[in-house]
């Protein structure tokens, strides 16, 4: 049986009367790409914030790499990397300076941080732009830097929150290849996206959230099988079937 790298048990979080996360439980196996899908307002962001130690849960338990988020958040932060949906970069600084800075924040020494920054830039195909100001980069390049920063400090678990929003197919494909490469290196990845074909292509298992709860969790194949022939139905069909067609905020 695969080793569980992250275990989430009975997670709750409310904001006044709104139950944003309402009893969520799931596990992610080591080396797995786990997709977390859901319409807007489903509770994905709140869940990721709790998993990445930014937000404290009202109730429930999160164990990452054997460390409790509640009891030892610093140990958890030392093994995670977060690639937020919105670009989180210092646009006035160079790509290299951005990466070295976040490397230092991840506890790396100067030379080590610089070496890893160059390595990650190479991985993202940006080694020639190391000294360039991030503010002058294209949207796709910024997305790749955003992802490269998340890799600083050699995390064991990566949170990728819609890492391919608003970029061209070439950059998106490059990011996919990198994510698959990272998985081969043994990284565990939690991936959220609104692009169903991305989740279908990349994720080993997929959880669909709605109303603060996980309403389905399985492999893409098994999810499709629930509503028809896996060869004929798409993940989007499953998603719409489970979450409904009404518009969300």
């Amino acid at each position, binding site marked *: 049986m695969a080793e569980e790298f992250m275990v989430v048990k009975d997670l709750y979080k409310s904001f006044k009367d709104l139950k944003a996360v309402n009893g969520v439980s799931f596990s992610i196996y080591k080396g797995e790409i786990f997709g977390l899908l859901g319409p807007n307002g489903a509770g994905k962001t709140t869940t990721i914030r709790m998993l990445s130690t*930014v937000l404290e849960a009202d109730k429930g338990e999160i164990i990452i790499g054997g460390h409790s988020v509640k009891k030892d958040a*610093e140990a958890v932060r030392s093994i995670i990397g977060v690639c937020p949906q919105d670009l989180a970069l210092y646009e006035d600084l160079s790509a290299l300076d951005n990466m070295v800075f976040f490397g230092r924040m991840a506890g790396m020494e100067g030379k080590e941080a610089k070496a890893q920054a160059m390595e990650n830039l190479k991985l993202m195909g940006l080694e020639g732009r190391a000294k360039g100001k991030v503010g002058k980069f294209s949207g796709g390049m910024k997305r790749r830097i955003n992802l490269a920063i998340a890799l600083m400090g050699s995390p064991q678990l990566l949170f990728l929150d819609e890492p391919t929003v608003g970029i061209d197919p070439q950059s998106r494909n490059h990011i996919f290849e990198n994510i698959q490469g990272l998985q081969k290196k043994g990284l565990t990845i939690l991936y959220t996206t609104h692009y169903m074909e991305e989740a279908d292509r990349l994720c080993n298992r997929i959880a669909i959230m709605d109303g603060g709860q996980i309403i389905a969790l399985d492999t893409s194949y098994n999810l499709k099988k629930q509503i028809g022939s896996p060869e004929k139905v798409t993940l989007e069909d499953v998603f719409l079937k489970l979450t409904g067609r009404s518009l969300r905020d």
Partner: protein
Amino acid sequence: MKRALFITLNEVRLYLQDKGDLAFGLLLPVLTFALMYGAFGGETMFKATANIVNEDSGVYSQQLIEKLDSIDGISIDVMTAADADIKLERSDILLALFIPADFSETLSSGGKAELVFKQRGNGGLEGQILAGIIRSIAGEIDQEFQALHRVEGNLEGNDIPQSDIELTVRSLLEEERQQPSLGVAEEVVGGSTEFINQYLPGIITMYVLFALSLSAQAIVEERRRGTLERLLTTRLSAGELFFGKFISITARGFIQTLILLILSYAVFRLFTPVSFLACLVISFVFAAAAAALGMIIAAISRTEEAANWIAVVVTMFMVMMGNTFFQVGEDSVLATIGKFSLNTYANKAYTTIIAQEGALGDVWLQLVILAGVAVAGLFISRMIFRAVPGSK
């Protein structure tokens, strides 16, 4: 602590990258200094032009003008009566002294001569002061004539040449002027009389308050960039983030003030080396207190607009209630309210050092209060900070 210093270094790097911000931050003290120099750099004494219509061709009117011209700060503009009337009519000048044609002759003959002030309205403040000075000189000349005529009258028939009498009387009067029987001494209460010494504390405190506005933006800027949440998922703690920001903003506020102080030291020669160092200590502690208050604003502000507005209101309060540019009555309600303004303590400290030539030991209470605000402000800001709503 190490990561807090990386935050500080990153802030410095970002500051140096933003050329506009850098230019603003460094040039502003120089610009302020230039304005100060323009306002206070020259003579601080009264300056005025005496507009004179001299219709007399005698020696005594000339003597009056020469005496007036010999006074520092007063220059003479001799004009015709027609010119004076036109200028008065157009309000180009507010007061003119008319010396009548028979002025010298009347004085020589022992008669009663008269000067005429023609003025627009009350002659203006400058005109009133000039008129007072002219009256005083006229009084001196009158006394000289009175004395001379009486001595001549008493010595009449003693075969003493009139020139000898005049010489003796004039030298005695000059002696009296040099060593008057009735003197007026100046006693300065509260240190220097220089305007710059009175205003510099207010200008410096205004400057240091920039630290408050800067730190109010510290966290919302990270929030706007999206880097705040990312930073808080690294090993950096919120406390380290706040401390790193606090150090960089304190340093920036201090450096801006340092430029102002160095220029004041070099050009105005306002300080001794010891008082200069004392001012640096006050500036550092005050910048830290202002930065810490700004961090509280940063902790509660969700948007840049909110941070700006709160910082503006707090800064206005500090300036208005803190004796920055006008003195608040000691036992008034405003003075009680002013105790909540950092400027009250900073101004008191600067004024004690700059204008009253005090020492650092004289301002220990103000320094302790400002340092206390710095420590408490930083602590409170961290306590009330929430990275995202609902977080701890």
